[in-house]
């Protein structure tokens, strides 16, 4: 297994390198640092000195790939590409526009992000899988039909509506929980309840339908018919046979998301004022803080690749036929 893991990690390297090159091209080649400076300082009234200062502050004043004025190894390391791109592999992201260290900021904000994303994920998985199993249990009845209709309707509602509507109804009309904000310790559940519930509701439509399709595909297999013929009750068939065998497609979609939970949810965090990575990203996008966006892109892809590896590992847990070669 360790050999397999090492090999997978080695495979991940060229992909991360690709991500790195792509972001570098996006941020430094499509537009030169001069362009970015002009944009940030206001296009009309900007002096060459101001541009130069802006570039020096951020370390964008060096050559992109090759520094002729430096000596020895410095020719390759004293460049924008090395400083801004390659350093990310050791999680050194430099400083944001407000001067704070991005890596530290990310560490601090992971907690609040997880506090929202993890309960949303677990609760959402439980609710949608149970709901889908219920629809499958009552398949080809009016309950199933109207359940699917409800799912399609819920899928068609914008996620913004759930959040805005929920905030308005629960917090403003019923005064059940604060409208936004975040607190640690015992105070946290009060702030977290609404975003978690809204996050779960927002995902019900599409996830339930997806799980229902998977279960329906599984339930028409021969082994299910055999089980029924032996007199196994429908509930046992559902939980013991269908659910277990549907685990592979479910895991494929689910496990890959788990590492990304660290990134938090962009919209929910920003609506509820939760100081997590999602709101950090949104603030950075709105303030056009390129360094932060670049760092988040890199971290996102690292987490995604971790997710892919976890997915493969998880297969061995649910299906003894899967082995590492």
């Amino acid at each position: 297994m360790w050999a397999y893991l090492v090999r997978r990690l080695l495979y991940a390297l060229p992909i991360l390198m690709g991500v790195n090159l792509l972001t570098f091209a996006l941020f430094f080649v499509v537009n030169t640092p001069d362009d970015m400076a002009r944009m940030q300082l206001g296009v009309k009234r900007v002096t060459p000195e101001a541009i130069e200062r802006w570039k020096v502050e951020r370390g964008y004043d060096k050559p992109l790939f090759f520094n002729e004025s430096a000596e020895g190894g410095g020719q390759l390391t004293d460049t924008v590409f090395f400083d801004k791109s390659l350093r990310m592999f050791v999680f050194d992201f430099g400083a944001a526009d407000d001067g704070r260290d991005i890596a530290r900021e990310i560490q601090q904000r992971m907690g609040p992000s997880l506090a929202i994303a993890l309960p949303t994920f677990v609760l959402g998985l439980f609710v949608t899988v149970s709901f889908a199993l219920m629809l499958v249990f009552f398949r080809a009845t009016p309950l199933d039909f109207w359940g699917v209709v409800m799912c399609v309707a819920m899928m068609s509602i914008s996620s913004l509506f759930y959040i805005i509507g929920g905030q308005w109804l629960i917090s403003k009309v019923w005064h059940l929980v604060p409208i936004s904000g975040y607190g640690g310790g015992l105070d946290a559940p009060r702030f977290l309840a609404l975003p978690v519930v809204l996050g779960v509701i927002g995902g019900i439509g599409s996830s339930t339908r997806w799980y229902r399709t998977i279960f329906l595909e599984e339930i028409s297999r021969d082994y299910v018919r055999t089980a029924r013929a032996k007199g196994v009750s429908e509930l046992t068939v559902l939980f013991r046979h269908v659910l277990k065998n549907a685990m592979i497609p479910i895991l494929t979609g689910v496990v890959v998301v788990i590492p990304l939970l660290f990134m938090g949810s962009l919209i929910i965090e920003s609506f509820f004022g939760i100081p997590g990575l999602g709101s950090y990203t949104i603030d950075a996008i709105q303030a056009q803080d390129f360094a932060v966006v670049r760092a988040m892109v890199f971290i996102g892809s690292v987490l995604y690749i971790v997710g892919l590896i976890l997915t493969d590992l998880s297969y061995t847990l649910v299906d003894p036929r899967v082995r590492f070669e």
Partner: protein
Amino acid sequence: MIEHGFETVVLWTDACFFLLLGAFAVGALHAWRRPHLRRSWARVGERPAGMAAMVVLLVFLLIGILDSLHFRAALPPTAGQTETVYATEVTSVLDVVMHRQRTDVERTYSAPLATHAFVKETVELPDGGQRRDFPRLVHGGAHLEDAAQDHGADIASRLMRGAAVGVGLSLLAAAVLSVFNGGAGRLIRGQTQLAWRSAWLTWSIVAVVAGMLLSLAQGYHVFGTDKVGQDVFYLTLKSVRTALMIGTLTTLVTLPLAIALGILAGYFGGWVDDVIQYLYTVLNSIPGVLLIAAAVLMMQVFIANHPEWFATAAERSDARLLALCFILGMTSWTGLCRLLRGETLKLRELEYVQAARAFGVPTVRILLRHVLPNLMHIVIIALVMDFSGLVLAEAVLSYVGIGVDPNMASFGTLINAARMELARDPMVWWSLAAAFVFMFVLVLAANLLADVVRDAFDPRAG
């Protein structure tokens, strides 16, 4: 407004949109000629949900087309002028149809169908004194002499008139459909081959609702006005075009990339496959929103640094919309590409492809004649299914600040502008409600159609 002639303007998105419509028309003609494709589309039409969804989508499409026919009106000639001068403002046919809603701007917020403003202002009294009160709106309900007394009756009579027009349209449609389907009885009992009854019922609802809205809109702001006093009904209808553009133009980028790369990777295998797989794994591993954000940020820098490329504000926001579609396309072709690659891998081993290869048919011909047509069902299903997701994504992206130009009417900008106003007391809810309801209807119709299309085209289903 166009009494002095006009000059047509074709924005880039208009050109792409009509190009796409043309391609759809060609595709439809092609499908009509092939019995097996015709049968698949007929299966879509046999389902009531499919017909209903298509009627709704066609109405939205009509709004989008009207709003995509752009021109610049000529200014009234002045003395001694030899050449016609055109307005710098680009207007669309929809703007002409809704001229009243476009120009009748209030000072600030007003509730739907209101005659008085939403916030108190200092009003001059006839005797010279002053009072804090809700002033009368400049346009909304301005035809009423006694607003308090006539308001309800006027709305009721307008509703009746609008509904009557709607019922008339519905009866007309029923008559036309009856002629083509062998009598009204068969239509009403639902005994037609295609689900015409469902189409007719949907059309009737749309006609009655549209009739009432339009008849009310002649005297009031049906959905109220926004912060700067613009008519929300007008803005909502303008948003439809943006949503359609995002949902459809994106495919102009996705399809060629996904089809070409998917087929190449699947058919040739080897290093071609490796390179293409590497490409989409890299793109896939960046979380979608972040990649879009990064690309849009860079596009903003680019547009800000090249103001000389865009003569008018309309051109700039249009370029931004097109670029957004391009970016969305570049980030979303990977899923379809992977599907097509897998399917091509399967097709490549089938006997008829093997036979064609053994006979020495050129590779290009094999790909075009034997592989591509057998992938089309996947492409069509993916096309329809992506549409609703893209429309929903636009709203979220605009909220994050990486969507369409803030000056362009879209569901996202409407929601974004209105969401802070929920904190007001009393609340300003109408912009949000209008945007959400229209978006819901559009996306629901698209989702229903996607379901029906998938059932009809997927060979594995039933």
